[in-house]
């Protein structure tokens, strides 16, 4: 740190290497950082001209001096008159630029004397020959960075104002390898897109469930029951949904149902209406999903119940067949039997999937438990003495 180069101890230091944490003169900077590929990646920047120990952060156009953050704050932040000075951020560089390239990057950078340059240029030329592929690819990336205003321009605010052509694009991206990654990021996320949102999938499921029955049974519905669709909606609204959800309005609902049903000649209508009310859980599900299309699902439900459910609801429908004759005096009992038959059916279904075997819920916990120290089958703390009689209750807990 200081005015003299850390490497040769000879010349004045001009640039600061962040990775090496060293102030170097220009020739040593070129020597050191052209030695191998890793050191070439180091990002270097100009030294602050006030303190000569920290990397310069901005260049003040009025005072024509490069300052680090501390000196910038001291010089410009404190006094209000100076705070209006126009300041331009200074970029970093990496690789092995020649003096002319540095001058093109930083317009204020003085050209180094030709004597010192010639040997370094030779070295530079050697480096170029050996690492030609890397440099040209890097140069190509540079050109594309300048063209791609969206990707990198946001990273460095002022680089576009610099006169630098080749080197002006790098400000905070010193790493050679990170540059292709930056370019790849903008086109990347646009390629991915969600194929289907879950809501649509859900609807598909219910569509398959209902639509077949609708097509099959719409005509049958008209034939068998002879009610208009409006009437069936009223039926559903009053008696269907509420009864399925088990509300206490069964008296009114039932009377509505019965009124509608009484208009029908067929007794099977009542049976199917009641069996609809006491239908299985899966038909309840599709019913709730399709409340907007209630008439459609009603026909679906009745078709389903009439076609397939007679064997399963054998017991319940037998009970229901006998009910319409004496239903008006006891309106709640049919509701209670509906919930009871629901519960019975649910119990029977769950009974089929019962397992009384030993079941491990978390494999990782089993692994931990297997490793734990045990005394007489009980977990113990490692290291304690355990020779007590389990029948003796002198130990706590």
């Amino acid at each position: 740190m200081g005015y003299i180069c850390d490497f040769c101890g000879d010349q004045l230091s001009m640039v600061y290497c962040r990775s090496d944490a060293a102030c170097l003169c220009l020739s040593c900077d070129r020597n050191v950082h052209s030695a191998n590929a890793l050191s070439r990646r180091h990002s270097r920047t100009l030294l602050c001209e006030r303190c000569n120990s920290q990397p310069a952060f901005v260049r003040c156009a009025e005072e024509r001096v490069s300052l680090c953050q501390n000196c910038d704050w001291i010089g410009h932040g404190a006094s209000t008159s100076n705070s209006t000075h126009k300041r331009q951020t200074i970029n970093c560089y990496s690789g092995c630029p020649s003096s002319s390239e540095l001058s093109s990057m930083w317009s204020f950078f003085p050209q180094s004397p030709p004597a010192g340059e010639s040997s370094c240029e030779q070295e530079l030329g050697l480096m170029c020959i050996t690492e030609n592929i890397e440099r040209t690819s890097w140069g190509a990336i540079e050109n594309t960075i300048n063209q791609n205003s969206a990707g990198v321009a946001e990273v460095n605010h002022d680089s576009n104002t610099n006169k630098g052509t080749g080197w002006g694009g790098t400000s905070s991206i010193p790493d050679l390898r990170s540059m292709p990654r930056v370019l790849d990021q903008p086109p990347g996320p646009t390629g991915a897109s969600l194929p289907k949102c879950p809501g649509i999938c859900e609807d598909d499921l219910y569509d398959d469930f209902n639509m077949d029955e609708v097509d099959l049974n719409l005509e049958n519905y008209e034939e068998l029951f002879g009610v208009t669709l409006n009437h069936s909606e009223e039926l559903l609204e009053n008696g269907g949904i509420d009864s399925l959800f088990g509300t206490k309005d069964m008296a009114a609902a039932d009377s509505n149902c019965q009124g509608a049903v009484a208009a029908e000649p067929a007794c099977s209508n009542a049976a199917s209406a009641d069996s609809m009310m006491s239908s299985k859980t899966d038909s309840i599900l599709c019913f709730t999903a399709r409340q907007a299309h209630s008439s459609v699902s009603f026909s679906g439900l009745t078709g389903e119940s009439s076609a397939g459910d007679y064997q399963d609801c054998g017991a319940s429908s037998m009970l229901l067949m006998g009910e319409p004759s004496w239903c008006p005096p006891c309106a709640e009992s049919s509701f209670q039997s509906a919930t009871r038959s629901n519960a019975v059916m649910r119990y029977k279904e769950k009974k089929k999937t019962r397992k009384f075997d030993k079941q491990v819920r978390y494999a990782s916990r089993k692994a931990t438990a297997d490793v734990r120290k045990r005394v007489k089958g009980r977990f113990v703390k490692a290291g304690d003495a355990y020779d007590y009689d389990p029948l003796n209750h002198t130990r706590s807990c």
Partner: protein
Amino acid sequence: MRTICDACESAAAIVFCAADEAALCGACDEKVHLCNKLAGRHVRVGLANPSDVPRCDICENAPGNMQFPGYKPGK
């Protein structure tokens, strides 16, 4: 599966240089850091073998660095 050396990309990396931001094998580490005195000042840390690192008991994934020898679940 161990990290591969960034310089030669053929040997397994055994050190990581923070200044260079690169994982290096032994030969490349000597080559890079013995060539000049500035590079010789770089702080390097050794990389552990993935199989030698104790893993977390719960997720079996991340390296575990805390031990609870007296732990009794429940009670």
